């Protein structure tokens, strides 16, 4: 079947571009982390794979094979992404359901969203491109909301300034992070920064009401993540950060269509 981009609607193009970029990125991440996952998936999925009569590493390699395969066949067999999600869940179960201990919790944060994105991509034939794109965008934004809710679950105590000082200091001591201590060296500044972190996270549902507001939130969160990456050395771009590719794909498709319109006018 010949792929002709001119016949695609904009949401179909966005989803197509996103699935290419996202699958390539996750494949690369998994491949890069092979040694790490080989050591951690055995206890994670041992019971599940034993019941299937398969070695855990076999499932991992099957996942690595299936991602590019789904990428090639998604036009006809979009449900293959569901199989990827299932394999991902089996392999990285302890991360996806946050059972691997607090020291690996950032891994949980990273892997859980990949599982859900694969699952969302598997529904594209039933839901259509527009709704699948909406779901992926929703997954990205709702993760910030969940983070915000987790912070205010104990009341407003998270914004006491000490909390941010403690976390920044801990990262600085563990990883020699630049600027971390300077940023929160004053308690009042730490309090203000705490509110600046939590408020957008709590207010993110507003992004679903207005497109411009959605872009304001997305760009703000993206900048916020870059700051976190630099100041706290948070490895946000691994797995989790690739979800931003949905917005990147939107921008690229918009530019592509604009250039096509210009050409047709000429």
């Amino acid at each position, binding site marked *: 079947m010949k792929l002709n981009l001119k016949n695609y609607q904009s949401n179909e193009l966005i989803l197509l571009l996103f699935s290419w970029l996202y699958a390539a990125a996750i494949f690369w991440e998994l491949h890069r982390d092979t040694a790490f996952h080989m050591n951690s998936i055995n206890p994670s999925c041992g019971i599940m794979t034993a019941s299937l009569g398969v070695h855990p590493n076999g499932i991992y390699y099957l996942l690595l094979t299936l991602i590019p395969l789904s990428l090639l066949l998604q036009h006809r067999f979009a449900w293959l992404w569901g199989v990827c999600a299932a394999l991902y869940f089996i392999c990285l179960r302890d991360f*996806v*359901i*946050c*059972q691997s201990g*607090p020291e690996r*919790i*950032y891994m*949980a*944060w990273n892997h*859980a*969203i990949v*599982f*859900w994105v694969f*699952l*969302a991509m598997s*529904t594209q034939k*039933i*839901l*259509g491109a527009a*709704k699948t794109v909406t*779901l992926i965008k*929703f*997954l990205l934004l*709702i*993760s910030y*909301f*969940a*983070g915000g*809710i*987790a*912070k205010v*679950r*104990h*009341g407003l*105590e*998270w914004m*006491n*300034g*000490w*909390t941010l*000082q*403690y*976390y920044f*200091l*801990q990262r*600085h*001591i*563990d990883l*020699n992070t630049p600027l971390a*201590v300077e940023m*929160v*060296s*004053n*308690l*009042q500044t*730490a309090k203000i920064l705490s509110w600046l972190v939590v408020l957008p996270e709590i207010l993110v549902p507003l992004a679903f009401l207005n497109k411009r507001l959605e872009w304001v939130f997305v760009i703000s969160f993206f900048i916020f993540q870059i700051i976190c990456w630099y100041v706290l050395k948070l490895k946000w771009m691994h797995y989790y950060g690739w979800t931003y590719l949905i917005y990147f794909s939107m921008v690229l498709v918009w530019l592509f269509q604009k250039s096509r319109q210009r050409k047709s006018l000429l």
Partner: protein
Amino acid sequence: MPKLQAVIFYGFIGIQLVAAVLPIRDWPLTDYPMFSYPRKEFFGISRLALEDVFNENVVTWSHADYSSVGLNDAKLQAYVNDVNNPRVFEIIADKIKHTGKYTNGTPNAIRVTKITTGPDSEGRLKTTKEVLREIEFKELSK
């Protein structure tokens, strides 16, 4: 919207919202303990550091110095309550042998210091340093 579409679409959204709002452990995307637990006023966070004591100055080991010999703070941190533990000496002696940082001369001694950073009464972060142990370089390089 056909019924199946609606069930999948709103079901997907509903699950995420419920998981975000309710603290259901064992459910993907429901737990963010990494930075979510509030902390009360704390005394400070400590770490151990190594310092090279020369005649004219004292040079603190950088992170690169530690990593170049495969040493991390955590390994020393394990002995923070008993810095005179013979294991501390063994670890440092072993790393001294493998480091390439003393090409311009060796220090007189290696110091193990405890660096504590924490807020003062007004909430400003302050760093204090306490020398826990000083070991002659000659002893270490035997």
